[in-house]
């Protein structure tokens, strides 16, 4: 299994990294919090950690720690627009249920 980006998501990541002026890729992960157990973490990656698993999709490097990978393996990251709002959406096959707003989830 692996992690992947849609073309739209990749374009947006590339644009924001270029604008930021530094960064080697995107770091994804989960942390325990939120109203339904887990919450996604999505940050710019500036350095590689020792245990990092590294994936590449659409020319973007994705870094993820092995513990997080269990929960998000197979996820496709998309960039969508909903009315005025736009942002990234995790299409995570492991999710059993998520809270109403979708910011946290359960596996």
């Amino acid at each position, binding site marked *: 299994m692996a992690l992947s980006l849609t073309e739209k998501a990749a374009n*947006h*990541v590339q*644009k*924001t990294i270029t*604008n*930021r002026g530094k960064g080697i890729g*995107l*770091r994804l992960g989960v*942390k325990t*919090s*939120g*109203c339904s157990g887990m*919450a*996604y*973490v*999505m*940050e*710019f*990656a*500036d350095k590689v950690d020792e245990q990092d698993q590294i994936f590449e999709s659409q020319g973007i490097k994705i870094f993820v720690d092995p513990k997080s990978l269990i929960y998000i393996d197979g996820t496709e990251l998309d960039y*969508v627009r*909903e*009315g*005025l*709002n*736009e*942002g*990234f*959406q*995790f299409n995570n096959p492991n999710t059993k249920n*998520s*809270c109403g*707003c*979708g*910011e*946290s989830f359960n596996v």
Partner: protein
Amino acid sequence: MALLQISEPGQSAAPHQHNLAAGIDLGTTNSLVATVRSGLAETLPDNEGHHLLPSIVHYAKDAAPQVGYAAKAQANIDPLNTIASVKRLMGRGLKDVKTTGTRLPYDFVENEDQGMPMIRTVVGDRSPVQISADILNTLKQRAEKTLGGELTGVVITVPAYFDEAQRQATKDAATLAGLNVLRLLNEPTAAAVAYGLDKSAEGVHAIYDLGGGTFDISILRLQRGVFEVMATAGNSALGGDDFDRAIAQWIMQQAGIADDAEHSHIRELLDIARTAKETLSTNESAPLEIRLEEGSVWQGELSNDQFNQLIDPLIQKTIAPCRRTLRDAGLSTDDINEVVMVGGSTRMPRVREKIGDFFKRTPHVDIDPDKVVAIGAAIQADILAGNKPDDDMLLLDVIPLSLGIETMGGLVEKIIPRNTTIPVARGQDFTTFKDGQTAMAIHVVQGERELVMDCRSLARFELRGIPPMVAGAGRIRVSYQVDADGLLSVSAKEETSGVHSQITVKPSYGLQDNEIERMLKESLEYAEEDVATRTLREQQVEADRVINALRAALKADGQVLLKQHEFLEINTALEDLLKVEQGNDADAIKNAIERINDVTQEFAARRMDASIHQAMKGHRLNDFAENE
């Protein structure tokens, strides 16, 4: 499904705990809202894709106020209930308003004792604060819809020129709109932040901001990643609106339209003028078509040359403040590294050309000049809301109360005025007051009042080892520096000998918000009294100086250069001054000083002659000629 944004490493927010922040440029003609998403600052469009929100509000009976383009569309139909350029009225009195433009097309409520000008509309009398709140509310809703949550706080920009009342009015409008103001930020500073000048190399930059209704020029110095505002000037009643008016007036002349035309007709003319102005940014000439009141149509054309002739005097009006700021900062145009253009009016090629000529370099126009201020505000808001790691923490904070120094007579000389962004460094030169003075006591105070006794004392120290000189010859540079944590250090240095001394204090220590408020309130309440006291003290100090100087002169040359009766006359005048000096009558002291000046004129002239004579003795004329 919530949509996520990329965070800085280690800064991911817990669910439902995002600090949504926005920057708002509340402009005279147009307003914008911007935010930082995934590290990218951008202005937010409305449903139709418009980024700019015209700062126009239309009031109709039994309906929510319309803001923006919808209101703009009403301007010609219902001019008295459609309020534009309300920023010009913020924090102003009715009297100020009448002088800013003779033809403001609104129905002002004639009520002289009301501080704020009120505008009569169908929904009742509205104050500029309420109208601004309606604009802010629209931007707030746009931001919250876009970001999918309630705003934690906003940064709102104001012209560097705004005084206390105008800033407070802006804050009040935000509160009324239900916004939490993280900070009011000066527009030029926001522009500098937007251009990332804080990240670039060291240098001195000029920010030229010609918006719809205000003009600001600011000279910023960047040193080790820190801004120092060296000088600012401007004109809070000069902008694109005036350019439109100049064109409209020209059209009225050409088309033979009377000065007292209807509100709606004038409004229409202003729209046509604005369109012509915008057309001329890319074209050589602009066609004009005016509907006259009798139903006929006047057609004409505005050429680029004619346009330049109309606007050159207005552009010239911006050059004088540019020159003044340079002089204030002690710089010439050669010292300026970068020139940044801000405000929609800087799209006019003629403005870019003239300002480029003046500063002798090509101005920066990379970021949309309409959006640059909002973008800078958004970046600042993002930081203040806590979405950035600490080491990225900026720079910009403000000093709540002015920092000053005690001068002769127990007066306060303000070195760093309140609301100055920190870190900041400002210096001022002082001189010795008495002949042979070898030490100077430096008393650091904080507050808005004119007298030391009414301000807070922060620290005292002494500068010793000044070489003995005549009064006024010493040059003591006192520098105040406030770092990013609000820590103040004060240093004093005598320039000719190099002796120096310094001290560090934390100015805001122990000052509670309500105490700051009290001090501010007092400074307003006692404003008149303070001015009177200041005048008196200044006269007393001047009297002291005159007495000292005269006594020294009399001692040195009085016997030689003055006849008996002259000596007596001067002595009488001196005695008179001594008598009134400790009294409370500033005018009496002033008169006595003037009297001394009168009776000692001849004495001063003779002393000058004598010293020249002394200097030339023993030299031949050729000695002087060769020296030239």
